[in-house]
């Protein structure tokens, strides 16, 4: 089954329809997604600012990470669960949304950033834990994370707008390609 086929199948399931049509549950899930953003993005930002030596500079980096990560992870789990539910409520349109695709791509890049950071400079954190200026690679990871998450928020917010939706034809070929629109030849 293609991904589009899978999205179409999801859209037909009973719970997807119920969620989509629900007057209260959908907005509640959406609000929870935004609440969790304050926790996840807010704490990730504090950690990134620490990596950039711009906040909590009196506290060792490892200490900041140790204290913040459980909360950040909790926020991330809520983000993923509510985000998945939001996708499940509107699968086909979301799958064919350029902004959603950009968001998923950036999420993967953000994940790679975390992975690279944790498997390189972070392994030697004891050496620079209290340095007034953190090493270049740590600063790069912090800056990249900040930029990526701001872009992810932008992309996520834009999913709500239908400028590039597949049912709004004609669209430039590049839009139809990027969104994976199935356009009937005239």
């Amino acid at each position: 089954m293609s991904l589009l086929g899978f999205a179409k199948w999801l859209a037909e399931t009973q719970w997807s329809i119920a969620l989509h049509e629900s007057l209260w549950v959908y907005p509640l899930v959406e609000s929870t997604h935004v609440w969790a953003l304050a926790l996840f993005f807010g704490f990730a930002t504090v950690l990134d600012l620490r990596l950039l030596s711009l906040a909590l500079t009196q506290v060792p980096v490892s200490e900041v990470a140790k204290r913040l990560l459980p909360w950040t992870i909790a926020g991330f789990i809520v983000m993923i669960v509510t985000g998945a539910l939001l996708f499940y409520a509107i699968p086909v349109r979301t799958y064919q949304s350029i902004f959603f695709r950009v968001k998923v791509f950036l999420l993967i890049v953000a994940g790679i950033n975390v992975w690279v950071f944790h498997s390189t400079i972070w392994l030697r954190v004891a050496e620079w834990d209290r340095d007034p200026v953190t090493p270049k690679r740590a600063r790069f990871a912090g800056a990249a994370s900040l930029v990526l998450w701001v872009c992810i928020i932008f992309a996520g917010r834009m999913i709500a707008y239908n400028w590039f939706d597949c049912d709004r034809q004609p669209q430039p070929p590049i839009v139809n390609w990027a969104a994976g629109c199935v356009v009937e030849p005239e």
Partner: protein
Amino acid sequence: MLLPLFEWFELTTVGEIIRTSTWLFPFIEAFHLVAFGVVGGAVLLVDLRLIGLAFRSQPVAQVAQEMKPWLQRGVAVAVVSGSLLFVSESVKCYYSEAFWIKITGLFFALIFTFTIRRKVSMAEAGSIGPVWGRVVGVVSIGLWATVAWGGRWIGFS
């Protein structure tokens, strides 16, 4: 009484430009969301410390002091972007319950944050009982959560 004022907001050049533009409103809105995230992080970190759930190895005052500039920056960007969003659709806001819930919540959240909460969080360790810290932390989270909820809900009405 407020309606004519809100109608006038929409007619201002700024309101007009944002309302007639396709991209401006979503763009400012995304900024608003980022600022909200920064405020959320700065507020939650100190609140969780007050409640005693995070950063217990650091004194409350230190955490509060470190977060203060980011809280102020976040609030500044959120208020400016929020005002821009508001003038572009102030009549809709006038009739939106969510908007009034949010504004009321924001009013109390800001006053609370910059008076009682500041005093309690900046106090010397031990000078204020732990129960007070917890109460202040919980109230703060409740107020800001109301602001976030009301704000998100404006878009659904």
